[in-house]
């Protein structure tokens, strides 16, 4: 009985494994794998490796459905990050991950370490990180605790990214009280790599040394992975949240890239969730090898740490590296230059065991296959929730407070729709001097040094849509991401996703997961954007309330020539405004799922079905938009999404250029006030607003006709900086752009700076 820990018999008799989150069945399976009772340390190791967070036991059967291959895919799911070819011997490496549970407890560190973790996943592959994005969900800002979670998360994201010197170029923030106790923080990192520099997390070559590099190991974050796999984070301890050190990670980044560049690295892996345990087991598993690790050699920052604590610590900014035997000195020298430690703690074996020793004593001895490949799969029950069959498809009747203009102003001041400047001005979006389109447009655009190319990035998701129709909502998230890239002039390449859901043990929640994953899969096939990695965050529930099913899509697109970069802001008066897609879709589709309905009828906003979504329509609109950009026909492009048509038009007008908009809609029959609301604020998908110079109007309409895509002339860009909407001869909305802009720009700041 080492370190006063319970004996294997006590672990069994007192059911200590239960407190680690292992079920009876799983414990029996461990005994069968080992052929004996596991000791305390081994029980801990199994519990984290078999946790939802590490093993994806609920979601694995679902994830298998994603399309993961394609001509350009160099690395699909299974490594630290996926890789996609962009030509010129270059590739883009990217991944998105959630850090929801830690953020709910300690928002600054929770969000910061989420950023730190995803950056490590990228440079572990040998790639130079070039951009960060995020996707955030909070409860509404009229609540002080929500403001606290929001402001500290933003500060944490900025604090980490700004310090390490990777620009935070984009993202999204949505406010809805369904996230009040379960905020979502999903962080995405993108890197660039030359094909021949790709590193992997493989521990191969018997007797090759295994090194721990970077920060020292402490007791922080023990059982963080387990804690992310159970219900209600508020019942958990704050000590399970890690603390980040971006300065340390900057040094680690530079040292690791320098080390990988020597070509003497066999394998390298981030120590993220479940720290040394999962990094060592996964590296050995990929190589089909074994490892011997001596925990007495691990540099520590606390005294008397047990093997159990050492294996389960989630101290940040650490990596596990396997070097060619005899080449360790290279690592020592490089890490010393950067003021870091690199320490050999063991070696690769060929017996397939993860063997943890403490000096002469064996502390744990487990077959790697038992930890990784034999991790249990939980086939969860799935049940279609009743509410889905009770949704209404008619037009909701809303009470307009005073005028359509006031409705528009009110909508523009909604936290979800309002400008996110308050957020992104706190992020360094320009460091590395390759950011060509900063936050605020449809997608961020970052240059590829040494080429004419640029990459476009976006994160998109709409939990309310997925709640109202899991399959279609999942597909629409992918469609919107692709649409945003296309509006920026990029060809969509591939997807990373974060699947944020409630408690999968509830059949209705599992149904949401399953159906939305199918929708995502289908859409990824249609848009030829394979899923090359991502993660799953379950158990986002508290006080019995589950979050909306919120898959977030991170998508990367390629712009072959920087001349094709497109933004959403209006450029010059006299240009025409067109809508690609169905102008009056709202008359049939209504306001289902819209932000407007949430604003005006919060009690019943979940009673109405989503607008129709047709893949062919979406594809057609995107194809026309991208081709028009590449043919040089457009000056601005902006997709119609949250808030609908008028919000999208207003967003295009609110620029430094001080321009106005005058549009005239000519319906073929008289519209009631209620009809108008649906046309103005309905969120029917598959629509893009574009700005066209007069001489190119003919070319645009011909292109659209050729593709069978509706293309309606709405009006013109004016120089008087007024926003005017006519229905036939009647002015129905008129406002100085300045008035719209101050509502839109000031909304979040008025809560946060007040």
């Amino acid at each position, binding site marked *: 009985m080492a370190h006063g820990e319970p004996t294997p018999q006590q672990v069994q008799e007192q059911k200590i494994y239960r407190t680690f989150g292992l079920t009876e069945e799983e414990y029996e399976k461990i005994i069968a794998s080992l052929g004996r009772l596991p000791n305390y340390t081994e029980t801990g190791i199994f519990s984290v490796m078999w946790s939802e967070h590490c093993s994806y036991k609920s979601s694995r059967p679902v994830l298998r459905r994603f399309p993961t291959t394609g001509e350009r895919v160099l690395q699909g799911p299974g490594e630290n990050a996926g890789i996609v070819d962009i030509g010129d011997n270059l590739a883009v490496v990217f991944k998105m991950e959630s850090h929801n549970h830690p953020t709910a407890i300690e928002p600054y560190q929770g969000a910061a370490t989420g950023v730190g973790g995803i950056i490590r996943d990228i440079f572990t592959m040998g790639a130079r990180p070039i951009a960060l994005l995020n996707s955030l969900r909070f409860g509404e800002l009229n609540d002080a605790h929500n403001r606290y979670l929001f402001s500290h998360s933003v500060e944490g994201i900025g604090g980490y990214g700004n310090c390490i010197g990777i620009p935070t170029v984009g993202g999204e923030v949505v406010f809805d009280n369904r996230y009040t106790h379960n905020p979502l923080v999903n962080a995405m990192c993108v890197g660039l790599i030359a094909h021949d520099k790709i590193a992997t997390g493989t521990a191969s070559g018997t007797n090759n040394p295994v090194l721990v590099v970077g920060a020292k190991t402490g007791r922080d974050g023990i059982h963080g992975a387990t804690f992310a796999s159970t219900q209600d984070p508020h019942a958990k301890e704050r000590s399970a949240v890690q603390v980040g050190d*971006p*300065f340390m990670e900057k040094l680690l980044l530079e040292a690791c890239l320098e080390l990988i560049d020597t070509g003497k690295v066999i394998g390298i892996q981030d120590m993220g969730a479940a720290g040394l345990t999962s990094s060592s087991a996964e590296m050995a598993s990929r190589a089909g090898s074994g490892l011997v690790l001596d925990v007495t050699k691990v540099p520590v920052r606390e005294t008397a740490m047990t093997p159990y604590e050492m294996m389960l610590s989630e101290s940040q900014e650490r990596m596990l590296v396997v070097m060619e035997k005899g080449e360790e000195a290279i690592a020592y020298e490089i890490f010393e230059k950067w003021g870091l430690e690199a320490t050999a703690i063991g070696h690769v074996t060929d017996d397939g065991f993860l063997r943890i020793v403490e000096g002469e004593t064996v502390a744990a001895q487990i077959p790697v296959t038992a930890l990784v490949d034999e991790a249990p799969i939980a086939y969860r029950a799935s049940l279609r929730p009743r509410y889905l069959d009770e949704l209404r498809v008619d037009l909701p009747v809303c009470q307009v407070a005073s005028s359509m203009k006031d409705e528009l102003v009110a909508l523009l001041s909604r936290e979800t729709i309002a400008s996110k400047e308050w957020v992104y001005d*706190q992020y360094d979006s320009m460091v590395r001097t390759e950011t060509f389109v*900063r936050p605020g447009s449809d997608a961020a655009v970052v240059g590829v040094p040494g080429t004419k190319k640029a990459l476009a990035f976006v994160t998109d998701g709409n939990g309310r849509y997925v709640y109202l129709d899991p399959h279609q909502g999942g597909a629409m998230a992918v469609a919107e991401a692709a649409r945003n890239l296309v509006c920026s002039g990029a060809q969509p390449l591939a997807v990373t996703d974060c699947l944020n859901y409630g408690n999968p043990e509830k059949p209705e929640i599992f149904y949401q997961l399953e159906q939305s994953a199918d929708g995502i899969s289908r859409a990824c096939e249609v848009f030829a954007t394979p899923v090359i990695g991502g993660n799953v965050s379950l158990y986002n529930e508290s006080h019995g309330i589950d979050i909306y099913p919120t898959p977030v899509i991170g998508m990367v697109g390629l712009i072959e020539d920087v001349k094709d970069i497109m933004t959403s802001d209006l450029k010059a008066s006299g240009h025409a405004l067109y809508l690609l897609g169905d102008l009056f879709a709202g008359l049939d589709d209504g306001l289902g799922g819209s932000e407007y309905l949430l604003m005006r009828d919060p009690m019943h906003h979940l009673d109405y079905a989503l607008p129709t979504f047709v893949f062919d329509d979406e594809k057609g609109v995107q194809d026309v938009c991208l081709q028009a950009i590449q043919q040089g026909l457009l000056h601005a492009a902006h997709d119609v999404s949250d808030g609908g048509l008028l919000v999208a038009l207003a967003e295009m007008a609110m620029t430094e250029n001080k321009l106005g908009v005058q549009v005239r809609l000519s319906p073929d029959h008289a519209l009631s006030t209620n009809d108008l609301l649906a046309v103005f604020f309905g969120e029917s998908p598959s629509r893009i607003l574009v700005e066209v110079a007069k001489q190119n109007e003919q070319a645009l309409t011909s292109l659209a006709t050729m593709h069978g895509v509706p293309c309606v002339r709405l009006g013109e860009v004016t120089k008087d900086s007024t926003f005017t909407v006519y229905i036939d001869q009647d002015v129905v909305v008129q406002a100085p752009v300045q008035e719209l802009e101050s509502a839109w720009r000031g909304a979040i700041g008025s809560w946060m700076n007040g």
Partner: protein
Amino acid sequence: MKTAVIQFPGSNCDMDAVKAVQSTTAGTAELVWHTTKDLSAYDVIVVPGGFSYGDYLRAGAIARFSPVMDAVATEALRGKLVMGICNGFQVLTEAGLLPGALRQNESLQFRCEMAQLVVENTDTPYTRSYHEGEVIRIPIAHGEGNYYADDATVQELEKNEQIVFRYRKEHNPNGSVGDIAGIVNKNKNVLGMMPHPERAVHELLGSADGVRLFTSIFTTWRDAHGTR
């Protein structure tokens, strides 16, 4: 013209500075590690932006004790051009090469945006290609950019025409006294500024107004050394 860009642990605008010098002038630029003790081979020294030593304790407070800083001071004294950008400005004030200090932004928040600067003095090696009173667009990205000096020091700066850039009136992003964005020493060979000219060297970056700062430096050097 040989430019040294000092690299502290935690510098992160170091490569941006190298790229900017190389793309805007006919000179060369290279990274110089913070343990270097002799900078006599260089004509221009850039102390770049970033978070040297994590900005722990206080921005620039640890970097100023770095071995290379003695060499920076020596070359500054010899009249070489020494330019500190953002964190570099903080380091130069901590090292006593420039007066004043950079405090936390008045908003208490990090702020990144395109700032508008007024060129106050074109009679420096860094600004000779600008017009006096010209408004230029140069990005800022800092949490501690709130320039402070006591009244006597500010009067001294005014009197000696050491204030090179000010934020445009009503557009002061951080609470700096006198809207000060950049200053030079009395000798005008040491410049410190919070905005990032190296981030404004191409229209694709949203502004090319920083180019003339680098061409000013290059012209100054060429006038002194002839073309080489």
